[in-house]
Structures are given as C-alpha cells and as structure tokens.
C-alpha cells in the first residue's frame, strides 16, 4: 500500500478509534452524565437487547425511504427529460425546484398524514420522494445537457433520428449525472423518512422509537435506535455509491473523459 493510501484509510480510522475510546473513558469515569451521552458500551448492550425491534423499525423506516427514493427518482428523471425537451417546462419547473431545494419539505408531513389517513405510511414516503426529486431532477437535467457540440454535429452528419441521438449521445452522457443525483438523494430519503416520523402518523419506525425512548428517559436505548438509523443511512449511501460507480466506467469519469485532444 502506498503512503498516501495508508494516510487515507489509517488517519480517519485512528481518529475514530481515539474518539470512541475517549467517549467510553469519559462516560465510564462519570465525567459525562447519562442524559447527555450514554457510553458506547451501554448503547451496544441496548442494541443487542432490542435487536428484533431495531430490525423491524429499521425495515419500516427503510421501506419508506426506499419507496420514496424510487418514486422521487422516476418522477425526477421524467420531468428532467421533459424540461430538456421543452423550454416551457424548463422555465416553469426551474423556480419551483429552486424553491423546493431551500424549503423545509418536512413541514408538509402533518397535512400529508391528514390527506392519506392516520394509518398510512404514504405521507412519509411522499416527503421522502419530494426530497429525492430535487437532486435527481437537477442532476439529470444537467446531465442531459452534457452532450458536446461536436457529438451533436456528428449525429447531424449521420442524419440520425432524434431517438438515435438520444440513445447514442444524450443518454450515455447523462447517465453518470443521474446516478450522482440518486446517490445524493439516497441520504435525503432516509433522513426525510425518519424526520417525518417526528411529525406524527403511525408509530413503529425508528424515528418514532427514538422519540418515545427519549421521552421515557431511556437514553441508551434511544441512542441504540440512533445508531441503527446511522447504519440504515450508511447502507443506502453505500448501495447507491456502488451503483454510481457501476454506471460510471473509469473511462467516462469526469476529468478523464476521452475525445478531447
């Protein structure tokens, strides 16, 4: 392993271990109160004890996030296609999307719960989908505009039909951007699905359990759920990062693009 690679892996790992050890030592010595921060060992203990609930609630929240991710991605890509084809759609959508990007979407959670009914998870899935939609739309549209003039000229020279230009030039150029959007969106999907649970609706997800545990002063258990939420977020991130890598072969990664001389 090169020195640089060692630094890249070793440095953060050492930092993580040092922080974790300091945390454990401080809490064990009683320097930090339980309500502020329970010890890692106590959290781990709770995680083992409540493992089945943990997995069940992670499945509920994760399921909401996944459905939101899929729905938001589909809508985001379709609308980006429409916006790249039609100026009007682009002009109408751009300000709304720019607004959506800075607005607390989760504020819609309470009324969505009313709209879909109190026992439905759809409100949360809709929140996740809305949050996912923004980066997927923005990145897809950027990707669809990546085709270079020389490639468009080439397609005209070949008298290619619009569908062929789409297939041979536009879509392949857009693909890495779409998957980057999905990777960014995946974290938002989990966060939104989780946070939406704080705004009411059916119980049973990770967010709901974190609130109830905290409210009943079971801090270590609440932290155990927080850790599961982190693992869930990490899983989404790793899977979508892997997809992004697969969709972007080494030869087309930005900065290494061929065809320029």
């Amino acid at each position: 392993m090169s020195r640089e690679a060692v630094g890249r892996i070793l440095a953060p790992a050492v930092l993580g271990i040092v922080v974790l050890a300091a945390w454990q030592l401080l809490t064990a010595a009683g320097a930090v109160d339980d309500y502020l921060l329970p010890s890692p060992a106590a959290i781990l203990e709770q995680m083992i004890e409540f493992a089945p609930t943990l997995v069940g609630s992670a499945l509920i929240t994760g399921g909401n996030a996944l459905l939101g991710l899929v729905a938001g991605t589909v809508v985001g890509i379709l609308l980006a296609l429409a916006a790249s084809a039609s100026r009007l759609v682009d002009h109408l959508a751009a300000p709304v999307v720019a607004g959506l990007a800075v607005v607390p979407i989760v504020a819609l959670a309470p009324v969505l719960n009313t709209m879909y009914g109190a026992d439905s998870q759809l409100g949360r899935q809709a929140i996740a989908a809305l949050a996912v939609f923004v980066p997927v739309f923005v990145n897809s549209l950027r990707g669809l505009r990546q085709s270079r003039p020389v490639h468009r000229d080439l397609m005209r020279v070949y008298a290619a039909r619009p569908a062929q230009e789409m297939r041979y030039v536009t879509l392949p150029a857009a693909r890495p951007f779409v998957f980057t959007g999905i990777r960014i969106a995946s974290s938002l999907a989990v966060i939104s699905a989780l946070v939406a649970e704080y705004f009411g609706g059916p119980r049973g997800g990770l967010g709901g359990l974190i609130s109830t545990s905290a409210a009943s002063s079971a801090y270590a258990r609440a932290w155990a759920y927080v850790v599961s939420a982190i693992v869930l977020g990490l899983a989404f991130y790793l899977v979508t990062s892997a997809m992004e890598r697969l969709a972007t072969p080494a030869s087309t990664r930005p900065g290494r693009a061929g065809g320029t001389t």
Partner: protein
Amino acid sequence: MTAQHAVVVDTVDKVFGTGERRVVALDKVSLTVAAGEFVSLIGPSGCGKSTLLRLLADLDEPSAGTITVFGKPAKQARIDQDYGIAFQQSGLLPWRTIAANVELPLEVHGVGKRERRERARELLELVGLADFLDKHPDQLSGGMQQRVAIARALAERPKLLLMDEPFGALDEMTREYLQGELVRICAETGAAVVFVTHSIPEAAFLSDRVVVMSPRPGRIRAVLETGFSSADRGAGMREDPSFFAAVTRVREALGAAHHEPEALGAAHDEPTPHAEPVA
C-alpha cells in the same frame, strides 16, 4: 459539371447575426473540387474556412448561393452519407470502445453487427490501430484518437472527406506523421478531400490545390496549384526545394490576404454558432 465534381460551391454568402452584430463570414465564394482531388482551405482566423466546411457538411445553411455535392444538394448528400467528416476534436464518444466508435455511423444506419465489426477491424488496420479495438478513447494519445476519428470518417466508404483542422491540436512530429498517413489513405481510397488548416507547410504538403482565404468578409483570395502528385509526397519531399517553393507561394498569397495582426478579442476562430471552449 456534375458527376465528375465532388463539390461545387456557387456564389455562396454566409451571414451570422443581424444589425450591429452582423458578421459576413463568407462573401460570394465559388469553388469546385474534382473527384479524388485534395483541396486545402487556408487563411487567418475569421476568414470563414471552417464555416465553408460546415456548409459543405450541411451543418449550416448558406445565406445565399448553392452548394452541390456529387450533383446533389448538400442536405441530400448528407442524408445519403456521401461524405465522411473529421473535426479538430476527435469527437469520440468516451463511453464507447475504439471499435464501437468506428462502428457508430454504421450502427446508426442499421448495418448488422457482424458486418460492422468486420469493417471496423479493416478500418482500424488501415490507420494502424488494430491492436486497440477494445480500448477506450482516454487510453489513447491525441494523435491516435485523431486516427480513430479518420477511420470513423471512412466507415461508409465516402468519396469525399471533409476535415476541419484534424491535426490542429497535435504536436509537430505527430502532425507530420499523420499527414503522411493521410496521403497513403487518400491514395488507397481515392476520396476527394476538403481540408481546413492554418498550417502553411501542411497545406503545401497535402494539397493538389490550396485555396487561400482572407477575413472580414471571408473571401477566396487565390487558388494555387502545388503540382505534386501523391507519389511525390514521401518523407523526402519535405526537404525538396520544390516543396519550399510551394510553401513560399502559399505564404506570399497569405501575406497579401492578411493585413494586420489579430486584435486580442478576435484571436478565436470564426463565429461558428457551435463554438465550444477548448478543453
């Protein structure tokens, strides 16, 4: 004056923009290129040489006048794939292998997979890149990428090649090597070539005729016969007095066309609407 002529350009004007921003890129330009003939367009930035090539390729339409390619309107010639084209940027699709890039025009036109493969191999052998079939463009040097682009331009066996400064971004050694390769390829395929360049030796070395253009408005200043045959164009010719004489004649014709150094803002190329930043 139809079938034996590859290209006939008849009093063509091309104007970009309107009002204050109006630029006359081409002013009453006429030119005929015979079948199998190699013609270079040379001139300073803004003389309309690339614009003229884009009109031949039907990438733009003339504001006035007519363009005929093998006796048909330029648009029909494009649809019939009567010409192949290579740009200054190789324009290879970075996500496709070298072979798949060469196959691209054939694939667009519905040629079967097997036949495509066969033809791509043949063409890459012609440009000396048969070993790079499955590589991606970023694994090749700039000169190799340009050779792939030429192979791609030849895919439909065109009788006319349009080349827009294809060696413009390459270093001098690679340039001279590829010029030699181009001479060989032209001799093997018998295609006519319209070749845009701003290198005087390049124009003198490659061409049967050199068309010297002047800017603002873009006009043809002079047409010079070099008098070389493809048999002459070996490595030795670059040191031959007749070659120096040809270079001098082109340079003098250009000197007459070129009054002053370019202003700072005009240092870029002519105002093609698809101008893109050099990467």
